[in-house]
């Protein structure tokens, strides 16, 4: 099976999880487990090739322009990790079926499958960018798997994410430095580059960055607190991620990069010291725990510390030990995690203090946990003994003076004493000690027990026949650039490491005979706080700092956000214009005929409208002035020879005024109170920016010949597209991507209105102030009974309009269709046509006596979504020819058609949808408000006499 197919199959798994969990519920674990085993089996031929000394590479172009490829490589090291990920993954999936609750468990299987993809991608990646991407996938999936475990896991998952992202960042920096310096994104080329020997300073920096990244994932001090935190996740998650996979991603990274860094002193020192310190510290912490799962978490941290230290030593023996211990640990630890779940299921707790003598009802579980912990404590003849003894032995090979090796061995030995102690604590605490009655406990079902026990039991024969690992481990070590591996044997003779192991077992056993006193001694917290507390304090301080900084710029009132940019803009325009003016004769002369007499008349109208809008105290008056200004601007657009723009502006103007009127019904009639006490500042700013804008426009426009694009469109536009209306063909063909972006903005505004108004019901806001009720009603007229009837009875009031509609609406719809159709060749197109149809919607709305929405509910959202999707789909059709949004042409019944017409349909639907949102949501009746009705003395509140 090729590597790409392996990844494709793993990528299909998260997609298949949806139908699988939907059909099978939690039993989706069975097909997933079978799939993973099948993939592992399918990889056997490739694996055999690798074991024969080969290397499988496969490259698929991904971003060729950036020289980033989906470069995959399977070598000895990758093979070990791929097999761990697939086989342990299958066991955990089988176990999950029984362990998880009887529900769909979509999130669990989805993120577990996504994680497996990231993990396998990580160990197969031969491209540094791909490596980083997969690294982050594992981080995110790990976070999501913890976060989905309920509210208690929220802060724990956030801390995990934070710590693993610290490592992600350092890895990113390291990867970028490597790519820039070695000039290639290929990991295999980069790692064998001469840079590492030529530039020791640079090498040290990258080595530290990679080491930190590895430490965060492999939970090494000071990043270890995330792993105990992650125990909030379900037990199968811990069995897979926190024993076999995500933490091993950190180990993989360190192993992979040891090819380049194994001779770098800072790498050796950092890994050995941090690894051994972590090993000893976490072993002590593990011994402190009484929650079996947290105990397992700390023990994992401790074991990973040993592996890290061995990688730091970097000799053939040490790397061999690291690889074999990675395998051994993945087996016994994932099994032990699952056994903790078995205990939890059987006794309802995993707290040692509350567990009865479970050995009486669960002999097989007892034996299995003994075997697993014996492997962890390094007791012969298990696989864990072989690997651990090799790690101890390799400590003596630590670079530096001879005492360094002795010190490292002593430290590792001290850790081993505690390892034996906490391993014994697991067995004794869970199965031997305990006062609780056994009556409400029950043995596990076989389907829960077997997948949990399997990884542990295989450690026994594998320890006796450890020679089978010789070739795979040798290939793995060769992949790290070492010439030969160290032969694996169960019996190494009377080496120092054997003596240390024996001493550790003896000391640990001696300690455990006095265990009750010892527990009392250590189970009290002897540190002022945990790592999680420290991290929370960092978060807290960071938030406080952020609030302090944001306070200096935050304001509820928009003016504070608006004014500074406006001042900057004024200065830019002023200083820029002055600079251009004083630069002398570089400014070209203006074109002749820049203005026509009609412009002067429009200038006067615009000026009157603007002054009216600004000075009006009544909202209605301001709206009228605004509308007048808009019409004057529209005429100006026509006068500039832009009929499409003018038509659009005209329709928008009408609709804007209608929407404003709907909103004004609910607002006080006058701006009144909202007038500024000191208008000086805004006046100065307005004057400054107005003059600046005017001068800059005069100075910077109208001083050149027609632009090159203008000439192109005028000369070629019709030839290329077949449309005569150049503005329309630019919108839907030449620059359709702009229009698509605009549709997105438009649609989002519509969706946002629906969302905002749905989430902020006005009853939760301040009660209204009576003095500011709407006063849109002509109070004088109400004294005349006839006028009162006309205004208060919406039915009779609207009759004329309703009659008119029967004629007008069909006309408008036909007009809309005609305008749409002719858009390519004459002023019109999707925008204008949709706005004409919107006018019909507006009329229908206005003609109703009550504030009902036009059309079925949510039709507007469907129109917006359908419109944007239609436009997107049209864009995809373009790939049939060359690129996104490339229009295709064809001739149907003698008429030349383009797919851009379809695009225009999308435009039409989205625009119509947004206008309908406005009428539906802003025009709907105000919420029932008894206070307002009593104030209005008559039930006028729901009619729209203010509008008509």
């Amino acid at each position, binding site marked *: 099976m090729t590597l790409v197919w392996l990844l494709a199959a793993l990528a299909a798994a998260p997609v298949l999880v949806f139908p699988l969990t939907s059909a099978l519920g939690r039993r989706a674990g069975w097909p997933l487990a079978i799939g993973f085993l099948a993939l592992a089996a399918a990889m056997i031929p490739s694996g055999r090739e690798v074991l024969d000394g080969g290397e499988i590479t496969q490259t698929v172009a991904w971003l060729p322009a950036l020289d980033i490829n989906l470069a995959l490589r399977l070598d000895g090291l990758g093979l070990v990790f791929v097999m761990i990920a697939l086989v342990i993954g299958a066991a955990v999936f089988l176990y999950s079926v029984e362990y998880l609750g009887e529900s769909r468990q979509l999130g669990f299987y989805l993120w577990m499958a996504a994680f497996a993809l990231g993990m396998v991608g990580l160990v197969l990646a031969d491209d540094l960018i791909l490596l980083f991407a997969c690294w982050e996938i594992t981080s995110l999936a790990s976070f999501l798997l913890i976060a989905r475990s309920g509210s208690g896991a929220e802060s724990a998952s956030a801390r995990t994410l934070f710590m693993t992202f610290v490592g992600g960042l350092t890895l990113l920096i390291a990867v970028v430095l490597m790519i820039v310096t070695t000039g290639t994104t290929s990991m295999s080329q980069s790692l064998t580059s001469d840079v590492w020997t030529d530039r020791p300073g640079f090498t040290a920096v990258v080595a530290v960055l990679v080491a930190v990244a590895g430490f965060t994932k492999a939970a090494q001090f000071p990043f270890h607190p995330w792993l105990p935190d992650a125990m909030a996740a379900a037990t199968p998650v811990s069995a897979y991620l926190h024993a076999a996979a995500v933490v091993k991603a950190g180990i993989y990274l360190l192993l992979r990069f040891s090819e380049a860094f194994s001779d770098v002193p800072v790498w050796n020192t950092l890994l050995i010291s941090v690894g051994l310190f972590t090993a000893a510290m976490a072993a002590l912490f593990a011994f402190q725990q009484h929650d079996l799962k947290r105990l397992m978490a700390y023990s994992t941290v401790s074991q990973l510390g040993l592996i890290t230290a061995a990688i730091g030593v970097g000799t053939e023996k040490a790397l061999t030990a690291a690889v074999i211990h990675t395998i051994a640990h993945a087996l016994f630890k994932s099994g032990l995690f699952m056994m903790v779940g078995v205990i939890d299921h059987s006794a309802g707790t995993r707290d040692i203090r509350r567990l009865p003598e479970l050995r009486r009802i669960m002999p097989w579980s007892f034996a299995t946990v003994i075997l697993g912990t014996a492997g962890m404590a390094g007791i012969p003849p298990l696989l864990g003994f072989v690997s651990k003894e090799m790690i101890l032995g390799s400590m003596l090979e630590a670079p530096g003076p001879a005492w360094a090796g002795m010190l490292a061995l002593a430290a590792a030995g001290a850790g081993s004493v505690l390892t034996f102690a906490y391993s014994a604590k697991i067995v004794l605490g869970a199965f031997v000690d305990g006062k609780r009655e056994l009556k409400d406990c029950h043995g596990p079902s076989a389907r829960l027990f077997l997948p949990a026990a399997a990884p542990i039991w295989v450690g026994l024969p594998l320890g006796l026949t450890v020679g089978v690992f010789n070739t795979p481990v040798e290939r793995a070590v060769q992949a790290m650039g070492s010439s030969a591996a160290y032969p694996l044997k169960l019996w190494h003779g009377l080496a120092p490491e054997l003596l240390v192991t024996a001493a550790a077992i003896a000391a640990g056993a001696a300690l455990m005979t006095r265990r009750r006193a010892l527990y009392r001694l250590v189970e009290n917290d002897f540190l002022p706080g945990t790592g999680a507390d420290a991290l929370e304090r960092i978060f807290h301080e960071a938030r406080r700092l952020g609030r302090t900084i944001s306070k200096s710029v935050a304001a509820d009132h928009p003016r504070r956000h608006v004014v500074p940019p406006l001042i900057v803009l004024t200065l830019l325009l002023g200083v820029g214009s002055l600079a251009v003016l004083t630069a002398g004769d570089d400014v070209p002369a203006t074109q002749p005929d820049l203005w026509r007499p009609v412009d002067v008349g429009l200038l006067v109208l615009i000026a009157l409208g*603007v002054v009216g809008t600004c000075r009006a105290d009544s909202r209605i008056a301001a709206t009228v002035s605004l509308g007048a200004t*808009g019409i004057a601007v529209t005429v100006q657009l026509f006068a500039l020879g832009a009929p499409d723009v003018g038509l*659009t502006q005209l329709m928008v103007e009408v609709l804007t005024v209608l929407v404003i009127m709907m909103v004004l019904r609910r607002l006080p009639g006058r701006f009144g109170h909202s007038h500024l006490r000191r208008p000086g500042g805004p006046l100065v700013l307005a004057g400054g920016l107005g003059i600046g804008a*005017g001068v800059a426009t005069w100075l910077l426009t109208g001083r050149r010949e027609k632009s090159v694009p203008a000439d192109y469109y005028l000369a070629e536009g019709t030839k290329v597209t077949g449309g005569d209306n150049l503005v329309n063909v*630019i919108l839907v063909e030449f620059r359709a991507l702009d*229009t698509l972006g605009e549709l997105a903005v438009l649609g989002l505004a519509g969706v946002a209105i629906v969302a905002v108004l749905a989430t902020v019901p006005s009853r939760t806001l301040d009660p209204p102030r009576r003095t500011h009720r709407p006063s849109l009603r002509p109070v004088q007229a109400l004294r005349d009974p006839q006028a009162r009837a006309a205004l208060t009875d919406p039915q009779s009031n609207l009759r004329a309009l309703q009659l008119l509609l029967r004629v007008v609406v069909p006309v408008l719809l036909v007009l809309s269709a005609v305008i749409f159709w002719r858009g390519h060749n004459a002023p019109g197109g999707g925008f204008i046509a949709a706005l004409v149809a919107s006018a019909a919607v507006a009329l229908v709305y206005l003609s109703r006596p009550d504030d009902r929405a036009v059309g079925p509910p949510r039709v507007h959202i469907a129109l917006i979504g359908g419109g944007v999707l239609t436009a997107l789909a049209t864009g995809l059709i373009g790939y049939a020819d060359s690129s996104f949004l490339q229009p295709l042409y064809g001739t149907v019944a003698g008429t030349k058609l383009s797919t851009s017409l379809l695009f225009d349909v999308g435009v039409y639907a989205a625009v119509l949808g947004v206008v309908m949102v406005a009428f539906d949501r802003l025009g709907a009746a105000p919420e029932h408000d008894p206070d307002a009705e009593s104030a209005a003395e008559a039930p006028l509140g729901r009619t729209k006499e203010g509008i008509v």
Partner: protein
Amino acid sequence: MTVLPISIGILVAGGVYLLCQPGMVRIVFGITLLSHGANLVLLASGVSAWRGEPLTGTGDPADAADPLPMAFVLTAIVITLAVTIFMLALAMIGHDDDTLHMPDTGEDHRA
């Protein structure tokens, strides 16, 4: 001398003045005036000396206006419509549109 820049200046000045007022509706009006001004700036960049409609086969191509700024402006107008409607929806929340007074929504604004 030319006229269009003066119209633009007036529209921008009015828009900025309204933008600085408290009260969402006036701010919306300010945005509307500003966008009128901005649209005219865009069209002015196409040089207002040529004012023929950019329709192939209509009038003298030498006199046709630049169609590209028009396409920009058309897009801008529709976006302005969407933004205006959205801001008006915001103005409608609560019982008046005063932006200086923060209504009590029952939520904690201190985060």
